[in-house]
């Protein structure tokens, strides 16, 4: 992508998640975000990468992800692309996270909701036959949480 501040292509190996977090965190701190707000955004980007590795690629570690970050007129845009199995949009819709009682806890599904809670605008765009594109936007971002 032209004019991207970050454009990285990485293999779908969870061992690389720490490196991605470090890069995104450094970028956000350089852009003036405070540590707490940067941590939230890093978490959400990590969740998007994790979802692609787990669900689009089913845990296979030899596929590719591409993360692009760019500034645009309204704020900052993060885009994650994969070439895996398209994930149904219904599974990615925003829902209120209910406070569960301990007897009815389920361990899954949190990652997508964390992405929605951190970013101002989120679009999950599965391909017709393959691949997914996740667009996550911070609009006129508050740089402190």
């Amino acid at each position, binding site marked *: 992508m032209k004019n991207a501040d970050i454009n990285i292509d990485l293999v779908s190996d969870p*061992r690389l998640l720490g490196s991605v977090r470090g890069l995104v965190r450094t970028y956000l701190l350089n852009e003036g975000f405070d540590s707490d707000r940067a941590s939230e955004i890093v*978490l959400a980007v990590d*969740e998007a990468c*994790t979802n692609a590795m787990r669900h689009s690629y089913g845990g296979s570690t030899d596929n590719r992800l591409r993360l692009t970050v760019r500034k645009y007129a309204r704020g900052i845009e993060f885009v994650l692309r994969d070439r895996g199995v398209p994930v149904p949009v219904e599974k990615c819709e925003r829902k209120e996270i209910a*406070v569960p009682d*301990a007897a009815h806890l389920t*361990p899954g599904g*949190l*990652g997508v909701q964390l992405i929605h809670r951190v970013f101002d605008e989120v679009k999950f765009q599965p391909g017709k036959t393959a691949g997914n594109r996740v667009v996550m936007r911070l609009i006129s971002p508050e740089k402190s949480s």
Partner: protein
Amino acid sequence: MAMELSKADDGSGKHTITIVGEIDLYTSPKLRSAITESVPAASRALHVSLASVEYMDSSGVATLVEGLRAAMERNLEFVLLSPSPSVLKVLQLSRLDTVFTIREHA
């Protein structure tokens, strides 16, 4: 930074798992294995010390939820000890900070 994990048995039925580092998709299976081994071994309580966890994502949260459920099935006390600010933040974002028993000291 990767994750380091240690386990302790106080001899009176309480087991403690101590985590140092980051809990994410890559490291959470190690935590899951430790919890899976500790739940049947403990007769009274399982504590997970999170004071030195620099980062945790939803895979870590999911692993702790699994641990809580397994402990409840065996009537074990399941406690998160001294969670670091980053752990507390993801528990709050997940609205699970009130579901777990959280203590500053054992």
